[in-house]
């Protein structure tokens, strides 16, 4: 049973890493700033998924008794990573809002939506 929970944790953690890597690739390859914002958001989603997925490996004893049937009840997930990811989501939306405002301003001042620089991130 423990193995199944663990497998699910690892499975979603790998999905999170995949999201992170996909986002990083797009962040580097694309020039349009809006696309970079999307990429950053997907990257942060990846980190959040990893963070929460690994919390699925909660300790058995949190579920209750020591006998076998009680052990297989999935324990309530660790609340601390959840609180941290909630914080992270709010930070991410704040970053998105600020970035988009700067991008709109850049567009209206300079008429471009790229960093216009081959050395950009």
């Amino acid at each position, binding site marked *: 049973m423990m193995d199944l929970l663990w497998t699910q944790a690892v499975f979603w953690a790998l999905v999170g890493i995949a999201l*992170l890597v996909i986002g990083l690739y797009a*962040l580097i390859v694309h020039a349009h*700033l809006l696309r*970079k914002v999307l990429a*950053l958001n997907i*990257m*942060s989603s990846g*980190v959040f998924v*990893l*963070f929460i997925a*690994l*919390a699925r*490996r909660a300790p058995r004893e949190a579920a209750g008794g020591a006998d076998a049937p009680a052990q297989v009840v999935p324990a309530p997930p660790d609340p*601390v*990573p959840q609180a*941290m990811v909630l*914080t*992270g989501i709010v*930070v991410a939306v*704040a*970053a998105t809002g*600020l*970035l988009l405002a*700067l*991008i709109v*301003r*850049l567009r209206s*001042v*300079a008429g471009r939506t790229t*960093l*216009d*620089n081959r*050395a*950009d*991130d």
Partner: protein
Amino acid sequence: MRWDPGGLDWTLAVVFLPLAGALLCFLVPRRAAPVGLGAAVLTAAATFGLTLAVLADGVQRTALGGWAAPLGILWRADELSVALMAMTATVGVAVSFYAGAYFRDEHTERAFFWPLWLLLWMALNALFLSADLFNLYVTLELVGFAAASLTALGGNAAALAGAVRYLMVSVLGSLSYLLGVALVYHACGTVDITLAATRMGDAPGAAMHAATGAIIAGLLLKTALFPLHFWLPPAHGSAPAPVSALLSALVIKASFYLLLRLWLDMLGGGRWLAELLGVLGAAAVIWGSLLALRQTRLKLLIAYSTVAQVGYLFIAFPLSLAGNGAAWTGALYLALAHGLAKAAMFLSAGSLIRFGGHDRFAELDRPVPRLPLTLTAFTLAGVSIMGLPPSGGFIGKWLLLESAFRQGRYGLAAVVLLGGVLAAAYVFKVVGHAFTPGPREHRGLRVPAVMEWSALLLAVGAILLGLGLPLLRPLLQVGPESSGAGSAAAVGAWG
């Protein structure tokens, strides 16, 4: 678990005073400048109080919310964090006075500079105080947002592009850091630095290597170590001058401080990683100095000089492997001296821009006789950047050189010396042009005396730092044994 009131009042003040000031400035934008200046002076005074408290009573610990380490968040004000906070306060007060004059006629910039700058200050102090990995992530984001918004105050295309790039890099760096924190949490079951350090030994190696890599990569990106420095010159070169001073003097140091703190207290870092950081640091010194030499715009020159100076800080990593703390003291000395000197340089550059309308220094028309204080400030700051005695930069480089020679690391020693020579070349390039008449007669605009004096006082501070070695030594004694063991014992007693 409960605090004693003496120390906490100061720790509370250094975070909550700038926060309160920022909130007030935002609420009444018309009164932003006097309110902001008042909050800045009060914050600096509180920092001074905290420094004295730490020197007198040792490390100040606060359990926020009264919850002990694994569950709650700890503040820890030790010598290292207090040294950085004191530098922040010194630079902060000078820049605040400067900015009061600099933004006097620009209403929008004035209304938004103050809340953003005070929030940046609050975030920096919160970062220097925090002993909790996840809380540090939030403070890192605060610092990044504030710094990028301040950069955008420049308003033109270059500043906005610089700010966008800066913010993206900052968010990316924080994300990498957060990834590392997530791995640490899941391997050690805590985000408290000291507790995590004690549990890292039992944690699986692969996870710890990945966490170390992610945390260090994110912080290197934020610290702009070569070759991750690409975002720094456009941002620091195009922001308004007081903002550039804050970015180069303080914001870069915040991520370096965090890297150093984690390296000393938690990550411990392997030999190869230290050597790699040393090589990158050496490359940064050479590359940054060479590019600084090629610049024709003063602020870009100063920004590339920052790229080079960041390199010195990382040369200490391989030098500290032998186990003595002299290299760390040297790096910290350099960080503090660079903070004061670089802020003075950017502030002088701002005065020169006000005077001439641009910062192509070869075309400025005889600034020396007309702005003697500003040019004196620039030259004195240059003395510290070059590392000539008796400046703070000299002491820092000398400590690095001493430990390099003692270990027979002649390559690193050569880089330190060569960096000094190159710095002399680019500083004198600017100063040389300052005596000559420009291509056109230029009347030059008046520069407020506050702007000239605040730059000069900072530069004098950078020089005096070199004379204050005996005074500062107790603050700058860092090493794994000085901070780690004591706090581990304390947390054991608390938990």
